[in-house]
């Protein structure tokens, strides 16, 4: 149980990073960090409540977070190249 609270409290500095971070890359980094924390929260939640099938969610968040991050960074890089 303590680890669930630890992860939830770790979410706050990452949101601060997303909102404050000086560059856009900090924000994307914060997004990926939040998705990692959420994965751990899901695993702990499923192990606390003895619901094994909820580990599917962790796999979903891993895959979707990767796709979104890749898409956003790809678009930002191509934008810069196009303008040169």
């Amino acid at each position: 149980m303590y680890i669930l609270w630890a992860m939830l409290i770790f979410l706050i500095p990452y949101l601060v990073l997303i909102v404050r971070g000086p560059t856009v890359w900090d924000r994307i980094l914060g997004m990926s960090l939040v998705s990692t924390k959420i994965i751990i929260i899901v695993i702990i939640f499923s192990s606390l409540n003895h619901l094994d099938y909820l580990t599917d969610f962790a796999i979903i968040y891993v895959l979707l977070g990767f796709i979104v991050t890749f898409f956003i960074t790809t678009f930002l890089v191509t934008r810069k190249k196009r303008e040169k």
Partner: protein
Amino acid sequence: MEILGNIIIILGIIFMLFGVIGIFRYQNFFVRILIASKIDTVGALTVVIGLAVKHGFSFFSLRVVLLLVLMFIINPMVTHIIARSAYESGQNIDGSVDDIEEGNE
């Protein structure tokens, strides 16, 4: 088994704590992402391993090990693509900010 798992989990949380301190301490983006990759890979993987150890040998820990393999492949890759695209789109290594955002007015 339970105590061992708890020790590993606390180790992972300590890793994450170092990462959080490091993110807010340094000004350069590339230093920050270097430290943040520690949270993303080492911390998260350690916590997940600790949970699997805590549960013992069961169906749950089998699924967790599958997830572990996926995270082991993907999480370093996420950090890599962020750092690489930051470098390619003109973020200077010495820390000066060249932001490519723009408002929508």
